[in-house]
């Protein structure tokens, strides 16, 4: 029990010890937050090994483009999950918005005489509708004090039912002339990068900015971390909640306006299970379902990771097609395990 450094003052020694402990835990934390990135790199290596075409620009562009929908929704979902909420309805919301936009464009194209105007207004409608649906969710959850799970499970059924109703059980299809006009939104590209990828990038950037650089973003994290504390700090919890569900709704609207030109139609099966994919992206990306933590970067990586898995499965036929879903399951669990240290 000897004490070598008598002259050093306690606090500074203490501090030194503390610092190193801190550094250690923040290193392991940093490693853990790299979990999804590591997983992604590993997967890409596997993909290249299995099929040399995997690493082509064409293929990677494809993967990114198709990630865009889920990715954009996942960015909004990331806010909701950090807030401590959840939204199960995003898939059917997307379907209903797609249906409404198509009906609107089909009506407005001839009515306004300008297909271009119709498409532009339709795109705006998508975002507005999304925000409006989000508003309904937010009000029911914040003011009505109903569990988000229940509210959005309810609207999951409601949205899809109304689409089915509008589509008479079949599909709503974009009229041909406007379809051609609208197509570049999905199929076009700028500087060699497809439009949806640009939009995805923008949404992610803006999302990260909002989450990390604005008071609103800070409040979202505070509420998810401890709602009572946030309320004590005079944060307008209800307003922030409503805004957050609206933000997610708007993201769904944006995703939908990219989606419509892709398939040019909406049917009762449109957007099926998107909610699971979006939530999974966020959580694979390092968020906790309890709220309080999560990141946009993680979410983006998570979304890309999930679509790379299915891309690789599409590119190879080493296992029975029946087992594709199993492989996906194993990979998701494995990636999540890579970042277990974080908790």
């Amino acid at each position, binding site marked *: 029990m*000897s*004490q070598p450094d008598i002259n050093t003052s*306690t*606090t500074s020694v203490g501090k030194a*010890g503390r610092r190193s402990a801190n550094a250690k835990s923040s290193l392991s934390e940093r490693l853990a937050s790299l979990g999804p990135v590591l997983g992604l790199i590993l997967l890409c290596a596997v993909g290249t090994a299995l099929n040399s075409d995997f690493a082509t620009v064409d293929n990677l562009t494809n993967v990114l483009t198709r990630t865009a929908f889920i990715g954009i929704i996942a960015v909004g979902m990331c806010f909701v999950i950090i807030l401590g909420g959840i939204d199960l309805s995003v898939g059917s919301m997307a379907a209903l918005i797609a249906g409404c936009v198509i009906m609107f464009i089909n009506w407005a194209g001839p009515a306004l005489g300008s297909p271009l105007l119709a498409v532009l207004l339709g795109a705006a409608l998508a975002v507005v509708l999304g925000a409006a649906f989000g508003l309904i969710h937010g009000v029911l959850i914040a003011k009505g004090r109903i569990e988000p799970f229940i509210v959005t499970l309810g609207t999951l059924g409601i949205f899809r039912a109304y689409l089915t109703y509008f589509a008479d059980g079949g599909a709503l299809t974009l009229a041909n002339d406007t379809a051609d006009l609208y197509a570049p939104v999905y199929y076009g590209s700028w500087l060699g990068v497809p439009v949806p990828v640009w939009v995805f990038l923008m949404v992610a950037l803006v999302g990260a900015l909002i989450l990390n650089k*604005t008071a609103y973003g800070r409040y979202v*994290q505070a509420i998810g971390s401890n709602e009572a504390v946030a309320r004590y700090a*005079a944060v307008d919890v209800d307003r922030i909640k409503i805004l957050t569900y609206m933000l997610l709704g708007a993201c769904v609207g944006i995703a939908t306006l990219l989606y419509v030109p892709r398939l040019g139609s909406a049917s009762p099966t449109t957007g099926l299970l998107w909610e699971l994919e979006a939530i999974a992206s966020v959580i694979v990306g390092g968020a906790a379902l309890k709220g309080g933590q999560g990141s946009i970067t993680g979410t983006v990586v998570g979304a890309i990771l999930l679509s790379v898995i299915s891309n690789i499965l599409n590119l190879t036929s080493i296992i029975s097609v029946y087992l594709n879903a199993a492989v996906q399951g194993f990979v998701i669990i494995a990636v999540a395990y890579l970042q277990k240290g974080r908790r």
Partner: protein
Amino acid sequence: MTDTAQSLAGVSVAFDGIVKRFGPVEVLHGVSFALEPGRVYGLLGENGAGKSTLMKILAGYEAPSAGSVLINGEPVSFRTSRDAETLGIVLIHQEFNLAEDLTVAGNIFLGHEKKRGWFLNEAAMREGALAAMRQVGLDIDPATPVRRLIVAEKQLVEIAKAVARRARLLIMDEPTATLTPSEAARLFALIARMRADGVTVIYISHKLDEVERITDEVIVMRDGRFVGRAPTHTVTRHAMATMMVGREIADQFPPRLTVDETRAPALGVRKVSVPGWAYEASFEVRPGEILGFAGLVGAGRTELFEGILGLRPASGTIELQGRAVKFRSLRDAAKYGLTYLSEDRKGKGLHVDFPLGPNLTLMALERYAKPWLDPSAERRALEGAVDEFGIRAGSLSVKASSLSGGNQQKLALAKVLHPEPKVVVLDEPTRGVDVGAKREIYFLIHRLAQQGLAVIVISSELIELIGLANRVAVMRAGRIVATLSGEELNEETMIAYATGTRHVAA
């Protein structure tokens, strides 16, 4: 808001017939008194007297059921704490009120973010946080998530948060409950500076020496009523205590026990290291002995024991009643008859959403499950504990969260003693407990030790250690630097070892 606050000279307060009811239970029965600006008031009262409740009303967190609050002569009716803040009234909560996932700076400025245009001005908030933290003597990176702080650091963050608000009326509800004397001293210096600036300070504490040292006037409450006030220099600590409990208080500490040195140690610890926190700690404690642990905040006492109990990675050997053991969790330790009271009451000590009974019996539930849980036995146990520990609750079926801070602490203490352990580690056992109840707890620990329990008390209150312990181990920077007993067991020596101003005997 800061501008208007600064323009105010100081804040005077008058309570006029404040009544507060929680459902059928009335906890404040018409409290009236007035406070002048620029003075430091000590608010005293037993656990559950209604101090925190009254202060929450003043700071806008609760609404009075009847009566009114007058600020600078004007009756006010706050809708939220934000309204009170605009008048410069800030409350430091008795229970932590921090968002664990946010950083220190994020918490300090929560609800008051500095902005540049649309965006947060992180640099300015970092500066502001550093300035506030400097004032309270907290030296960590403001970007550290609060989740990673130790209890005392969280307490300092709470204080820094209030400092950053530029309060004109600052209410501190037990700010030093988890601080050691040197941190507390820094806080007192801060209070003195604030008073010089004309800030009114209301200071709630059960540490009467502190109250005596820093306040101008003491105000005493009992059972939800105002019972008296007096300039501090006119009353002794003893008189304060008597006023609080309404009767004479006898000796605070029981007579020191003699330990049977021939008995084998109940717990022997050799060269235990908890990487990053504690190094090569060795000590032993015999049945019937009370071993104290002293040290500054951050000396690593809590972490040493968390290491021993398997809550953190640790190396070294541990013997319990002669058998070498290695705990992987508290479950293991409890099986061998070793229980632990955490210093973090809200985060680790009690299920605040549970009623009292299930909290009490949680660690000894097997006893009540034969195989079905026996609610009436649980209830009897609760009644017993309420008696033994002097827990004051409106009704026995309330949730733990509606107990006052000190009564929660008593419940937590009752909980870890309930399994009838052979060895118990108590980390800050009397945190927030009033003088009367403290005395009862000391006598209780004493009685249990007499019956053969080995007790380890980690405490920031040196007097408590001196009065209670047979021996006191002093820790500094993760090492046990001395084990004091007999003559050496006095404040000066302990502080000297704890701060490193005394050379260590090899």
